């Protein structure tokens, strides 16, 4: 049993066995097992409607599972709901702050609900707004915030009393690159203070950047899990991209590469570019030498790890594209 072994190594923040959630006939979550060590970032990666949010909602006590068991910091998800709720905090896919209230009022409300007195809640709100660079917007209604500000306030609201476990549901969906980087910095800072984070994302580079371990979820099932490098390694060690000076030589180059490397060579949409999977990165040098021996001149080349996009393609047989119209019905 994987779970028992892990427990010996490291205390677990989340331990779930065979979680199932059905909506009518549809099995939104279809037997998910998790063993997430404390103090780490765990990423759920998958397209819309894969069951990421549903799983998260069950672990946050918002949805009752139809099967399976789970423990959050050793507390049974069903029998000790209050103890579980005292450990976790949730920030939703659609910002779970109150749009009609100001930033200060939102944080004061959460602080009051956590047991702060009125004046302490005011101080805590001011401290958090300052920490999350929202002090200038403190008195503004949240509906006038930008997407990034809203997300930061949402996370700040979860940090009024720092939870042991934070659920971040698609923290950067719809944000511009700068706001996205800010959120990533925040998540790293949270983890450095000891919070365990479970995040869902559709962005492969986000999982790559933040998560210690990743579970790839599709149709309610975990189809692969491991570190980002493990997942990439399962696809192959790397990819060689080559761009030729003379596009006319591409056919010859393709033949040369495929005989040298022994793997299929793909022609890109760029008429002078081609790429090949490598079973061993040492072969790259050999392949380039071979091209120059045949007077095929190369304008640029690169050796890269496969992207998580390619991982997803290999695992599911289809690209990591989402189907937005399914989202509302399923999650």
């Amino acid at each position, binding site marked *: 049993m994987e779970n028992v072994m892990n427990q010996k190594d490291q205390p677990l923040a989340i331990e779930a066995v065979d979680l199932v959630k059905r909506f009518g006939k549809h099995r939104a979550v279809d037997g998910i097992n998790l063993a997430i060590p404390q103090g780490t970032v765990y990423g759920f990666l998958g397209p819309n409607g894969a069951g990421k949010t549903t799983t998260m909602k069950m672990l946050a006590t918002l949805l009752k599972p139809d099967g399976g068991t789970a423990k959050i910091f050793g507390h049974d998800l069903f029998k000790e709901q209050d103890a579980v709720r005292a450990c976790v*905090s949730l920030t939703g896919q659609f910002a779970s702050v109150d749009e009609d209230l100001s930033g200060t009022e939102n944080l004061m409300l959460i602080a009051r*609900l*956590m047991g702060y007195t009125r004046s302490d809640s005011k101080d805590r709100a001011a401290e958090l707004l300052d*920490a999350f660079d929202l002090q200038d917007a403190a008195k503004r209604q949240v509906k006038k915030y930008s997407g990034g500000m809203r997300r930061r306030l949402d996370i700040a609201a979860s940090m009024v009393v*720092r939870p042991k476990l934070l659920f971040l549901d698609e923290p950067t969906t719809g944000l511009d690159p700068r706001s996205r980087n800010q959120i990533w910095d925040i998540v790293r*800072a*949270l983890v450095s203070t000891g919070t365990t984070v479970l995040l869902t994302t559709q962005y492969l580079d986000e999982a790559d950047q933040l998560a210690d371990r990743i579970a790839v979820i599709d149709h309610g099932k975990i189809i692969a899990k491991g570190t980002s490098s493990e997942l990439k390694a399962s696809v192959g060690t790397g990819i060689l991209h080559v761009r030729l000076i003379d596009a006319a030589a591409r056919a010859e180059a393709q033949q040369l590469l495929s005989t040298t490397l022994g793997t299929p060579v793909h022609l890109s949409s760029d008429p002078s570019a081609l790429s090949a999977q490598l079973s061993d990165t040492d072969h790259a040098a050999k392949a380039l030498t071979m091209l120059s021996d045949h007077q095929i001149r190369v304008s640029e080349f690169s050796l890269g790890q496969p992207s998580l996009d390619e991982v997803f393609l290999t695992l599911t047989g289809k690209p990591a594209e989402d189907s937005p119209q399914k989202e509302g019905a399923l999650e």
Partner: protein
Amino acid sequence: MNSEQQLNKMRAALVDHKRPPHPSGFTTSLAFAWRALLKIKYVPEQLLDVTFFPVMFTLMFTYLFGGALAGSTADYLQFLIPGILVQTVVFTTVYTGVSLNEDISKGTFDRFRSMPIWGPSPLVGALLADTVRYTLASIIVIILGLILGFRPAGGVLGVVAGIMLVLIFSFSLSWVFTMLGLILQTAKAVMGISMTLLFPVTFASNIFVDPATMPGWLRAFVNINPVSILTTSLRQLMGGQVNWMQIIWVLIVSAVLILIFAPVTMYLYRNKR
């Protein structure tokens, strides 16, 4: 934001603070009531239903029908004001369900439901805040009545007791609309269905006319209609009589409403996905 200074500030704000003791259900309910009242500050228009409508209804019924129904508008006012007070407040309860539905359709409630607080407090808090709205509506009706010539024999005490009774009944009744707010998909649907329920219940009552001239089957309904019982109690209290049987009936109906609809509402709230 990306500066080291900002990150240090953040880490400082996140290191373990002493966790305050868990608040009581009463405290958390009050916090939610505070939240609802703050919304009035930002959207004062939402008070329109408790200010404009009672004024309009009172004026309309007094001057359109008063003379025909009671011989003179002055006589009709003595009869109408307690009734219009009941109608105004009862209609205001619908907005409880509508605003809850709008609230839940945003993500805010997911956070509340995953917090270690007394489960019903978001709902109880919202209902408490609505009691403030009901009180406001009551005061407006009474003041307008006094201006027009309403002279309650029960004095201040009778009027206050009457308002209290309406508040108790409305708090209980609003659980029905809170339940509808959780069952129905859109705020529009909540509004539509609630109004469909409320129109017959408020008009087929003794709010506007004495049921003596109604056909027998309708009179039978009007007489057992809780809205009629409440209106009668109010007329008596404001008229200076205390009829304990009537008052106890109102309290029983209120208790039954809470006992049935509060648990159902809470069940729906906990299991809402």
